[in-house]
């Protein structure tokens, strides 16, 4: 279905009542506020267990959950996989965080060795190494070459190690922190306008460049032409970004 220019920016928030263990609902709060500041009308579709997807979407958000919660949504998410992949191929914007990122990959093997199939938007696979291996926990500073996003900051907390497949590109390069797997210095993944990341924080409130990037790509999708934003100050977000980066540089190992 073609997006029509009259309607509001359509935001689909997936399983926010299940996949919200690290308060990723802050991302939707930030989108709502920034869209209002920029005068962009939006409509929000909350899609949870038992719900249908709407016919189309400009921006899809999904957060992180515990193993149990990932299992809980996996089947229904798989049933929505085809439409979600179509949206991504049509260049809708996506932000998938942590457990949501893992399930937007090819598959996730949990710490009991059970495979949870993903919806194959990102060419990544994730493996939980078992209870003895340390979690990737701590502050992260990373640098993204996507658009003009640049430096991103957040907090990661994941058992799973994510490995990029041959056709995958990382979302960012880790400067401080663990990243996808603690070994190759990559953070997250990007495919077309879909971004997967391990960053909580919540990530969008204190990374206004990433927030504007997602809003701009979502608006471009809605309009069918490239939307370019005028600069718009985000003083509180900028200061929160700077203090989070300072905390990360102080206490997370450099790569």
């Amino acid at each position: 279905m073609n997006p029509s220019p009259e309607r509001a920016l359509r935001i689909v928030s997936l399983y926010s009542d299940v996949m919200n263990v690290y308060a990723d609902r802050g991302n939707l709060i930030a989108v709502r506020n920034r869209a209002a500041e920029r005068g962009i009308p939006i409509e929000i579709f909350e899609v949870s267990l038992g719900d249908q997807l709407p016919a189309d979407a400009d921006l899809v958000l999904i957060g992180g959950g515990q193993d149990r919660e990932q299992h809980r949504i996996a089947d229904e998410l798989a049933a929505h996989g085809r439409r979600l992949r179509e949206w991504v191929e049509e260049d809708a914007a996506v932000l998938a965080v942590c457990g949501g990122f893992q399930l937007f990959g090819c598959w996730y093997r949990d710490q009991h060795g059970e495979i949870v199939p993903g919806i194959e938007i990102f060419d990544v696979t994730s493996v939980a190494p078992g209870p003895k291996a340390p979690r990737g926990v701590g502050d992260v500073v990373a640098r993204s070459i996507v658009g003009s996003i640049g430096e991103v900051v957040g907090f990661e907390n994941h058992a799973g190690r994510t490995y990029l497949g041959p056709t995958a590109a990382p979302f960012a390069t880790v400067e401080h922190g663990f990243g996808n797997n603690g070994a190759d210095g990559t953070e997250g993944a990007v495919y077309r306008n879909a971004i997967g990341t391990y960053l909580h924080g919540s990530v969008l409130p204190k990374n206004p460049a990433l927030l504007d990037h997602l809003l701009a790509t979502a608006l471009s999708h809605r309009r069918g032409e490239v939307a370019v934003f005028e600069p718009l100050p985000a003083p509180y977000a900028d200061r929160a970004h700077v203090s989070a980066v300072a905390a990360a540089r102080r206490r997370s190992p450099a790569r």
Partner: protein
Amino acid sequence: MTSLRDRAALLAGRAVGTSTRRFGRGGGTALPGLVAGAIASDLVRSLAENLPQGVVTVTGTNGKTTTAHLLAAILVEAGFEPLANHSGSNLERGLLATYVAAADRFGEIAKSNQAIGVLEVDEAELPRLFPRLRPRVATFLNLFRDQLDRYGEVDSISEGWRAMLTEFDAATTLVLNVDDPSVAELAIQATGRVVTFGMDDHSVALGAVDHASDARFCPNGNRFVYDAIYMGHVGEWHCDCCGRSRPAPDVIAREIQLGEDGSRVTIAIGETALAIELPLPGLYVVYNALAAAASAYALGVTHEVIASALATATAPFGRQERFQVDGREVRVLLAKNPAGLNEVLRTLTVTDGPLTVLAMLNDGIQDGQDVSWIYDADIELFAGRELQLVCSGDRADDFALRWVLAGIEPRSVLPDTEAALDASLAATPEGARLDVIATYTAMLDVREVLARRSGTASYWETPNEKGAR
């Protein structure tokens, strides 16, 4: 008789405590426990064995300190001699520090045969300590997400509780908040004596499950249905699929009236209804009082003693403590996770008047290094309120952004505690109240400044203060 090794460990711990206090390094209440525990690895067992009336453990994410404090007050009135770790010093080293401070040179605590341990225990540590403490009564309050960077995920804590009770429960009376499904689950599998407590007053229920909820699904994966929600995922729940439902509580809170400075509540135990005026505000304090009443009832304390002790309750360290500074009343409200912050916010919005708030967010190990949790709190509750806000703490900028996104712009953002307190007092009309909302270490910081300015005792001048967390 305490072993020689245990006695040596206690003496070494005491020596360390004396020297840390002399050098002004605060309470010296974790280090003595660490030292003593390093010398005698099973000292916790000796602590329990030296208490003739046994041990009560109080655990759960929120309300441990206040519940243990209220229970100790009831037990004093009932003629017990409670030994308590007063303020969140609830890891093994904190319990041992309590022992070090209380023991004589023979390692013995009891002056009489009425000594009883009232110990708040960290929810993640309890499975390790439970077999050694062998509590007479174990009270479970609730289980919310808290410091996921430190504890791991909520599920692993409830699994730890269940495994612990499968091995050792018959001799312990479990006191359970059955309004929390993950605590009620313990009642279903218990083989020993159980005393349950819960609320029954839909007038104080919330409209919907809030975002800080954690146990919204039954073990078969179906969503719980709530007839009333009192906080987070805590309320009157049932599952339409498997037939599980909240068990009928033995000790029930009814007819709750929440006020700015306290609450009225009727606590029903069997046929007896106790009308209580709690001098501390907030629905969460009603839960704490209910938990303390149920625990005291499990110990055989009479209804009259429970009612009279609760009516004269005071606030424990840093939890709704009040100070007089520069002609203003300052109230300190600890909020260290989203469920706790939500309850503090609800308490502040009980009345309609203008508010002055100092909001302090630290990101130390004891606070949780991940500050994401502020996005789970419903700060939007304040939208449209007349509110003067100052943000402070190590992560003042993160907290300020959270309030701005909820529609409330702070008048200033000052990471330094003294500067922020000055600005907040200046924004508070004379004779009015300043509410300080603070994470754990921020609470310790601001409490120190307030104690100094108001002439109140520092934490190390009262026994066993300052948490080990």
